């Protein structure tokens, strides 16, 4: 790829000076080495240092730079610039309060994550060495533990938009199943009790936006289905 100019439409809002949000038209010339959307917006920042967004690892493991890119949630660092139609429209993740520009307040998202008790519970005395787990049992955790808490999924979910305080959301439920699926965890009943509620789990209507946007290729809908199965099996 050679040098090229890329055009953006970016959601801007600084509560310190703007009365209301607006969309800014802005272009930037990229170097040949700029491949990802994050490269481009870092270059934009060199031009206009007031553009605010979160970023850290730039390789898709820290989960900082989630945003709404041409209408779809994704990570800026894993999105190829040249795959995007221009002008590239960037907005903050939908459904959460905006702090500034592309930065949203993730309090509600993390509150839901914390609500599922995201830690292993095992009340047996700790053995000297590791607890044993077969490779097959360990494989049950694949597709669950890799979540980076970027919030792409939950903020693309209509059920989470309407009830962010009541519905745990796909990220939190994926984490809930990660512990339910762990043979070392002893809290299965309490975990299911914690989700047995018209909203917390059952607001998922399998719309599958979460699966569509997950930058790590995870499948929260399937995990949610498995929790529902566990509920049913427990009832009979």
């Amino acid at each position, binding site marked *: 790829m050679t040098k090229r100019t890329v055009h953006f439409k970016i959601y801007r809002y*600084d509560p310190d000076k703007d009365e209301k949000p607006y969309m800014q038209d802005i272009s930037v010339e990229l170097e040949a080495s700029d491949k990802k959307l994050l490269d481009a917006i870092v270059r934009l920042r060199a031009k206009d240092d007031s553009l605010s967004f979160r970023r*850290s690892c730039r390789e898709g493991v820290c989960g900082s730079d989630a945003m709404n890119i041409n209408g779809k949630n994704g990570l800026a660092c894993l999105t190829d610039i040249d795959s995007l139609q221009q002008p590239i429209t960037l907005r903050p993740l939908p459904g959460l309060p905006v*702090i500034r520009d592309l930065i949203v307040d993730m309090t509600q998202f993390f509150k839901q994550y914390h609500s599922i008790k995201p830690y*292993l519970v095992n009340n047996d005395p700790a053995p000297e060495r*590791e607890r*044993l787990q*077969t490779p097959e049992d360990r494989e049950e955790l694949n597709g669950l533990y890799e979540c980076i808490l970027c919030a792409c999924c939950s903020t693309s979910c209509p059920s989470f938009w309407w009830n962010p305080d009541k519905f745990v959301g796909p990220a939190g439920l994926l984490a809930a199943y990660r512990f339910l699926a*762990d043979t070392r965890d002893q809290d299965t009943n309490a975990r299911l009790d914690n989700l047995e509620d018209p909203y917390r789990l059952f607001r998922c209507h399998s719309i599958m936006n979460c699966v569509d946007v997950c930058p790590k290729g995870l499948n929260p809908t399937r995990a949610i289905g498995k929790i529902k199965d566990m509920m049913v099996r427990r009832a009979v």
Partner: protein
Amino acid sequence: MNVAKRTFDAVIVGAGGAGLRAALQLSEAGLKTAVLTKVFPTRSHTVAAQGGVAASLGNSTEDNWHWHMYDTVKGSDWLGDQDAIEFMCKKANEVVVELEHYGMPFDRTDNGKIYQRPFGGHSMNYGQAPVMRSCAAADRTGHAMLHALYQRNVRANTQFFVEWMALDLIRNADGDVLGVTAMEMETGEVSIFHAKATVFATGGAGRIYYSSTNAFINTGDGVGMAARAGIPLEDMEFWQFHPTGVAGAGVLITEGVRGEGGILRNASGERFMERYAPNLKDLASRDVVSRAMTTEINEGRGAGPDKDHVLLDITHLSPDTIMKRLPGIREIAIQFAGVDPIKAPIPVVPTCHYQMGGIPTNYKGQVVVPKDGSPNTPVQGFYAAGECACASVHGANRLGTNSLLDLLVFGKSAGETVVEDFRSGQLTLKPLPENAADVSLARLARLESQTNGESVFDVGMEMRRTMQKHAGVFRFDQLLKEGVQKIGEVAERAKRTEIKDKSKVWNVARMEALELDNLIEVARATMVSAEARKESRGAHVRDDAPDTPENPNGRDDANWLKHTLWYSEGNRLDYKPVNLKPLSDDVEPIALAKRTY
């Protein structure tokens, strides 16, 4: 500006592996603790570690901590302190097993134990053959570890201050540490965190280099704060260049790829490591492999149209192994190199990865400085662990998987020491000086009013290019001398950075300007320390210190078997002895020898 004061038993700065491990110790002991972090904890850079954490569990091959200690001392090119190294290697099994109990999803062997893979420089029976010592969760070990530690802290009700950036260390006239000033990103407000104990776990500063595997946030904040507050920095000339960063992108490809059987090849397809390290080959220590790769490229045997990289080949591994053991690497190669490693080799180059030096500490996590006739006198109230600290276990070159181990062992150890000092009554809340926040407020006021200054981006770029050119994989006297001059000039320019954005709310420009102040301290320390060390040792290799019978590999133990201490004020150097004596009387010191793999 109005400055709020908050009081705690302990304040921890940083919520990566070391900070979270220390926090757990304090929270579970019931100390009122604040953990300040400029990113949500699971976004800390520990998340990017891939290949594993070292522990001589011996799950797949025979192993013991003596062998691990030998490998680590040898890997450090004898610059590591043997008391701290013994402590770390001995504690490894305990802290890794603990992590498993916290829920970390380690891969498993067929009999259900933690899966272990070979890694560079780790051997059995004192260098004889590779050993399986790296405990791994696929190639996402850091991610799995950081999340497990965060989750355990959720259980322990640790109090986090998320997206708070620490600005300056507060010390009194006696030099005791009383806490930090910090800014809340969302509001721009500055607070004083007044505490009996202050623990730094702020990570490294790999962003001083142009080409780095490090995250944007790795700006050496704690190291810079300590240096500005008069604490010397230890062994800052030693930077690890990881052999396998994706060419052009810098993104890390774990050494675990070679642990699983990956091979480095030059343009003609030759497995060149056989010539440089006949015994461990591709699994030689990182400094050795990075130099071999650089030599191949410099001598015209690099791959690609510009002959500017070498190839990491795993096409001979079964797709099953790759999908199971290296799934993250496959994603990275496809994303950032545009190749599927099942079908084609990955283009790689040595890339700045890890800061071996840092804030001087002992194995208990206490920050130590020369004072009252001892080179290692603890600073009252100040502790550090992880990459920002120098215990020193990595010496002149770190072994892969020893960094995750370092942050577990010394994060825990620092936490334990704080709890002990707290319970013994040794830690007290000392009165704050009147002007406790003045330094920070002055820095902010300068940024607020600066006109006709330079952009943070431009000055930062000059720093990164200067470091890359003048203090790289191989070092040359003339380049280092020029480098000292140039980085001094960049440091002057950094005092006049100007930001256009004056908003109080989540001002990234302000944050980056403050980070540059920290990076600059690290860059100066690195260049000045490197220029002064007239020998080759570990990752610091000079062309004018070659391999001779008197100085094997250019290492000059008669004159340079000592730790560097750099003081920011006056750009001054001092030195202190290396501790060659292990912690326990019944452990034999690892005797000096020529390093070969």
